[in-house]
């Protein structure tokens, strides 16, 4: 079952913050976040496992609420390099395929 991402697109100025949400109608084992630049392969950002943990590195962090089957990706003080399409991928249990949402396009301008 495909996760649902929102919003579809975000336009930011450098330094502004954004939140991208990912939700599923099924119980989740894990949520993965990837960023894809035009014409390139998706690049791994982070994995969150069930347990409601929050992870982060640099100015990008994420949370996972397993009761609500939702994850959110937080981008703070955005930089031009953050531009791209962000995909969440979900696993319903360990060992199943990672299914991606439709993506959220983030555009950061100076």
């Amino acid at each position, binding site marked *: 079952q*495909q996760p649902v991402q929102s919003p579809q697109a975000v336009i930011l100025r450098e330094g502004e913050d954004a939140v991208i949400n990912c939700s599923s109608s099924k119980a989740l084992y894990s949520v*993965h976040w990837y960023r*894809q630049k035009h014409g*390139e*392969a*998706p*690049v*791994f950002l982070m*994995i969150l*496992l069930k347990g409601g943990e929050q992870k982060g590195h640099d100015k990008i962090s994420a949370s996972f609420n397993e009761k609500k089957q939702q994850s959110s990706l937080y981008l703070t003080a955005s930089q031009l390099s953050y531009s791209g399409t962000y*995909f969440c*991928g979900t696993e319903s249990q*360990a*060992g*199943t*395929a*990672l*299914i*991606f*949402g*439709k*993506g959220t396009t983030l555009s950061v301008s100076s």
Partner: protein
Amino acid sequence: EPEVTQTPSHQVTQMGQEVILRCVPISNHLYFYWYRQILGQKVEFLVSFYNNEISEKSEIFDDQFSVERPDGSNFTLKIRSTKLEDSAMYFCASRQGFATNEKLFFGSGTQLSVL
């Protein structure tokens, strides 16, 4: 960092022809995947492969598609009779296992154009 390698980077074919897309996963990885992405759309799961057999496949992966690991290093996706709607970027991915924090490593993709 280790890489997943895909060849060719671009493939042009005529409708009805067979194509084989090739991938070399990371050497100690055990789980292999094919995804595809039609221009501007989401990354769609096609098939997963473990222990020399398909472990999961999507509705897209019909009888026209097959996967093989012909030797210890290559992982291939074959499309028997290509259709116009098969035009897409095809990504191979691999994963060491399903332990904590096991991410997918994606190859750089093969752009398939069916004319």
